[in-house]
């Protein structure tokens, strides 16, 4: 660990298309928020944003004005496992834009007063986020699902952790984010390979040869049993419901089969969940299940948002459907349909240069198995009914489930508890409690 790397050139990814006079650039690193020390949650995101605001020690207002004048956008995106500076620019302004991107990494000013201002802005954003019920459900689901694991910690931090972050913390994080050998630079759009290579070299020219970033995050472990968390908010006519447990890992032998099974269960507008919850009963505007991937195992979750009176029967139905899916699996007809859907709709995951380069970048940042995207269609074609049904039975959680419901607790609690067999614990939390 931490052995000096001998790699001296950035890893450059390129997808060329001259259809529009636009160039998109992503400078990504595997250094996401899981590297935030405990108690300093939000450090990576805060640092990345401060680097962007104070490039070359300039006034943040000048930088914002320059980005607008260039016909560009530039933002920082941080997830648990990765951080990326992402921008798009009108082709004629590419040169000065690349200089700005280089300054973000090589010469971040990180001014103390701007750190204070950014911290206060972030705290205000956290307060604002309390208005978003769907966002509340997601944040509480993440916290309770990955309780004690780095995935459970908030990427944006909380008020207390933000207050603890000092300029020296930010400076150390900025060094980590600017380590040359940890960077992947992706170009797409109106740019050819040679020019992209040259610009990438400029972006990293002044960055230090770096240490290897090693992700030592353990695999998450699901807490056994069924738990209900009600995020109590007044005057909710509707609920936001997330139900789930541990999901898939891209390296699992049954990963593709599980994705196919999820497509049938809740992955499309005509999947079982939408048919039962929305089309037949009209209970929820949307009803979907998802299986995201990361460097470690992520969560499986079902999402619905019925009105308060329908929350309990909707949850009961979802439990029943999940149980039936695990016990009986999917049919041959459903599998054929799903394979055709996944194969044909793949055209829309690769129809633009930015999407194509985005897949390559994701594969690098999330340590996906070799050929993960290139071999995707082959793997779908080879998936059998047995593969899918074994994967659904083995991987989908049924007894170890977390139920997160945003709603008015006094109106829904007793019905929810009655709707969940073998419920071991109910926790009611305030919607404005930091998470």
């Amino acid at each position: 660990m931490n052995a000096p790397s001998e790699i001296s050139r950035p890893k450059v990814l390129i997808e060329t298309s001259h259809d529009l006079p636009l160039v998109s650039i992503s400078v990504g690193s595997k250094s996401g928020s899981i590297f935030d020390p405990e108690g300093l949650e939000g450090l990576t995101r805060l640092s990345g944003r401060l680097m962007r605001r104070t490039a070359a020690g300039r006034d943040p207002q000048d930088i914002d004005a320059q980005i607008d004048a260039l016909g560009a956008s530039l933002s920082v995106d941080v997830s648990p496992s990765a951080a990326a500076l992402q921008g798009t620019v009108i082709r004629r302004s590419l040169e000065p834009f690349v200089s700005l991107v280089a300054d973000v990494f090589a010469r971040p000013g990180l001014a103390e007063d701007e750190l204070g201002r950014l911290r206060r802005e972030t705290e205000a954003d956290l307060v604002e986020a309390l208005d978003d019920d769907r966002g509340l459900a997601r944040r509480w689901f993440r916290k309770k699902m990955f309780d004690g694991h780095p995935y459970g910690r908030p990427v944006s931090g909380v008020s207390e952790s933000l207050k603890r972050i000092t300029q020296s913390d930010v400076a150390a994080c900025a060094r980590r984010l600017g380590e040359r050998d940890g960077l992947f630079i992706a170009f797409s759009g109106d740019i050819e390979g040679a020019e992209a290579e040259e610009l990438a070299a400029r972006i990293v020219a002044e960055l230090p040869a770096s240490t290897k970033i090693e992700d030592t995050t353990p695999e998450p472990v699901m807490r056994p049993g069924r738990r209900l968390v009600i995020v109590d908010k007044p005057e909710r006519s509707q609920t936001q419901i997330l139900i789930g447990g541990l999901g898939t890992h891209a390296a699992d032998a049954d990963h593709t089969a599980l994705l196919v099974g999820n497509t049938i269960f809740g992955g499309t507008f005509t999947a079982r969940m939408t048919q039962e919850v929305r089309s037949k009963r009209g209970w929820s505007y949307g009803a979907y299940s998802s299986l995201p991937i990361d460097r470690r195992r992520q969560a499986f979750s079902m999402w619905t948002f019925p009105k308060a009176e329908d929350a309990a029967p909707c949850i009961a139905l979802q439990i029943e459907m999940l149980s039936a899916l695990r016990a009986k699996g999917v049919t041959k007809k459903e599998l054929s349909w799903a394979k055709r859907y996944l194969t044909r709709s793949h055209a829309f995951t690769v129809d633009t240069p930015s999407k194509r380069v985005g897949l390559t970048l994701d594969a690098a940042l999330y340590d996906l198995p070799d050929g993960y995207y290139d071999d995707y269609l082959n793997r779908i074609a080879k998936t059998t009914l047995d593969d899918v049904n074994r994967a659904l039975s083995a991987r989908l959680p049924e007894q170890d489930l977390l139920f997160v419901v945003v709603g008015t607790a006094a109106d829904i609690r007793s019905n929810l508890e009655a709707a969940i067999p073998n419920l071991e614990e109910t926790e009611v939390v305030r919607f404005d409690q930091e998470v």
Partner: protein
Amino acid sequence: MQAPIAAVRARKPATSLSSARASRRKALLGTLNAAAPEWGSIEHIETLPFGPLLTLERFRLKNGLELLLCEEHSAPVVAFHTWFRVGSRHEKVGKTGLAHLFEHLMFNEVEGRAAGEFDRLLEEAGSEVNASTWLDWTQYNAATPKDQLGLVVQLEAERMSRLVLREPQVTSEKEVVANERRYRVDDDVEGAVSELLWATAFKEHAYRWPTIGWMTDIEGFTTEDCTEFYRTFYAPNNATIVVVGDVAEAQLLGRIAKAYGHIAPSALPLEDVQPEPAQLEERRIDVSKPTSTEKLLIGYHAPALGDWDHPLLSLLVEILFGGRASRVHRRLVRELELASEVRAFVGPFKDPGLTELFVSCREGTSAEAILTVIDEELARVKVEAILQEEIERGRARFELGLLAGLDTVDGKAQTIGFYETVLGRPCAAFERLDAIRNVSSSELRRVARKYFGAGQRSIVFVRPQAETTTGEKQ
């Protein structure tokens, strides 16, 4: 929906069609029309430049159906959009939300097919299908792998003329829409407040009610309401099809003639529009919501999308409110630290709409304090010259926004269909960029004086409700 753009490269002449191609098209249409169904003969109307690199071909069927085709072969996919010139403005009091409910029902059942088969077949084909409704229009979009285009054409034509409307689908879909309303409006502070603003600013025009409809109206719709709406507005002579992507003109025209050529045109009703009388005095509303901070929403009456002033006002709003470098954002968020979010938007509608300004206050800040700053900045642009560099920044943001919106075939079809339906000019996005290319500071000052008068605005102040919940653990 704002339309920045940029002619970054030299434009092709508007009529670049080679005579050989024109001859081939003439021969093709002759063949197709000789065998066309009753309403299926096709006429080529015009060729238009769509930006610097692409062209748009306009065709019209005998039944009045417009077809706009933009061939673009960068990926093996095609966007097929159907735009109907009917939106919530065509509804009546007591029947609000019908256009939107109808959009949902269009996915249910057609003659000869089972309920839900439409979606099932298109998903199996790998298509991405959706729809949207707003004040002036309803649009249905399908992006599909190129080899599945025939299925899309067939299914879209079927539901234009052979939709089945019956129970229990209508009742079930009403419940889905009611849940959509709870999600977007009733339990959403911004959604609820925006609805209130429009109902306050408009007293006569149909823009005063929300596209999703009032809850009591949604609950009251009958199958007969839906059938009447369908017969009235879902006709080929009230629609435009927009096709963008990897498609051959000859093949597409043959499919369109065959699929849509049997559909007769309708006698469309005369539109019954009540013009909105000029607002002469400021209107204020104060509401409490379960939110942590105060919010401020202001609506100034704005010109219609087709008005010469619309792009100029949009540029001015960009200079004042667009992005971190804009005047109001810089003062409220950065310098004074009074707000967490500032947004503004000039409504892109057929009739005059609103310029909406939204600000979310920081804790401890009153909406009145925000209003004072906004008023100061609006007063400034009415007397002081705007710097040329500010104008250029606003223009560059326009241009980036337009180009980014054209990234996919769907984005191009959306841009073409929107401007065609609202203005009758499918390339108007580029015209708008031309309109602001040489705009002067004095023109922007005139626009500020004209559209930011205090008597022309309505204001909604949102106050946080007292907390009522407590946490506990069992």
